[in-house]
């Protein structure tokens, strides 16, 4: 595997290798000398066409802990505001000798295009593309679920996870559905019908419009960010109605199993999809997700860059 574009491309073996490697990375960086020499002399470019400080910093820390040189390239202009084109940016990075490009882009498929259009030789890592995928987020979610529900190297087979909210516009949901199902988890999507894509019944997971009906049966609940502006496009009548039906608040959390946990990819809309009390509850693992993100991204960078330069033989 040269690129990480979609979790749909990961076999069970690949996914477990990444998670196991991340677990080792966690142990190795849990000591005074956090830095490893592994990627010394390699250049990782963070190419962000969209602001996302948390994802960029996470990749930056991961790359630096592996001793890679990191270049942050905040490209102005999405497809809408016609800045420098994706292709010209790619050619620039190629000229700079980038070994890996971590790309965040508002257009679905932009990382796929970057990897396949013959513009660049580098490894491409999708750090979120439009409403398509965000594979490392799903990997860190799976890592967090595993750590809490199955032990550091346990299996997620049969673990029940509800993904709640704006599935239609969520790249996190798509990546998680593929990955968690590959890992054997039982996924239920929970959303109003307007926020579920056409054809979702072919995704292989359960679908429910009723949060309360499924909540008690879950080992974990993954809350998705819901933008208030969706209200103006008639996806739901009001933020109040949305949070009443699909928000996670304390009374609702009380109906969850006592060992079940709450994830959120961040940034949270407190009061919208999640109440402040729930966000600060010890069973909510947002801070841990951030920590795990670094280890997962170290694993991905190591596995993709560690030896994928094909040797002549």
């Amino acid at each position, binding site marked *: 595997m040269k690129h990480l574009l979609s979790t749909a491309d990961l076999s069970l073996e690949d996914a477990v290798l990444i998670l*196991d490697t991340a677990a080792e990375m966690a142990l190795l960086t849990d000591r005074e000398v956090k830095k490893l020499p592994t990627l010394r002399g390699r250049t990782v470019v963070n190419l962000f066409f969209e602001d996302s400080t948390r994802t960029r910093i996470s990749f930056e820390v991961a790359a630096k802990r592996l001793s890679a040189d990191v270049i942050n390239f905040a490209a102005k202009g999405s497809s809408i505001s016609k800045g420098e084109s994706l292709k010209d940016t790619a050619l620039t990075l190629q000229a700079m000798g980038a070994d890996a490009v971590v790309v965040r882009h508002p257009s679905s498929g932009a990382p796929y295009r970057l990897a396949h259009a013959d513009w660049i030789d580098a490894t491409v890592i999708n750090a979120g593309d439009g409403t398509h995928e965000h594979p490392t987020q799903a990997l860190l979610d799976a890592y967090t679920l595993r750590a809490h529900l199955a032990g550091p190297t346990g299996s997620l087979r049969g673990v029940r996870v509800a993904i709640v909210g704006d599935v239609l516009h969520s790249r996190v949901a798509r990546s998680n559905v593929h990955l968690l199902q590959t890992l054997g988890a039982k996924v239920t999507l929970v959303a109003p019908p307007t926020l579920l894509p056409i054809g979702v019944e072919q995704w292989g997971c359960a679908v429910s419009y009723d949060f309360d009906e499924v909540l008690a049966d879950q080992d974990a609940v993954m809350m998705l960010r819901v933008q208030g502006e969706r209200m103006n496009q008639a996806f739901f009548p009001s933020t109040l109605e949305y949070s009443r039906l699909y928000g996670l608040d304390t009374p609702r959390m009380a109906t969850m199993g006592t060992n079940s946990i709450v994830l959120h990819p961040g940034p949270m809309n407190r009061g919208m999809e999640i109440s402040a009390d729930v966000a600060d509850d010890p069973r909510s693992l947002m801070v841990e997700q951030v920590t795990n993100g670094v280890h997962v991204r170290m694993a991905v960078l190591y*596995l993709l860059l560690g*030896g994928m*330069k094909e040797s002549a033989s």
Partner: protein
Amino acid sequence: MDHGRVVMDGSDIARAIRRLSHEIVESTKGSQDLVLLGIPTRGVELSQRIAAAIEEIESQAVSQGSLDITLYRDDLRLKPARALLPTAIPVGGIEDKIVVLVDDVLYSGRSVRAALDALNDVGRPRAVRLAVLVDRGHRQLPIRPDFVGKNLPTSTQQLVRVHLRDTDGIDSVVVSEEVR
């Protein structure tokens, strides 16, 4: 079973481990500060067996662990990425200890170089020594072992494989002609 010539069988290996253990005890003057760190995969089993032998000789426990060198290798660009193997530093750490690195075969010396780097990130031992079951020559770095089970002259075309009981089900060292 490998094709090739068996150069050490089970009793040869057992004898070699016994001798290595005696030499280590002697040179470290008692095992108080001794930490054995095996380099995965087979270095770990070797170091466990050496530790057991030393415990028999000295009648006291020996610190033993493992040190994965994967992330410190210098051939990452040449080979597919490998799964990481466990690093387990014994509870007492390695600070001011005498660390004996244990590996199955010493060849180019690059693994040992990586192990020294890895060790450096874990702590600062008083001294580091190297024990290997087989030294097959052809060093590419200025590294030499302190304790050797068997010196085995080979050509660079040959392949040396160490099999150990717990890992492979049998104790043997086999030399074969590498198939290109």
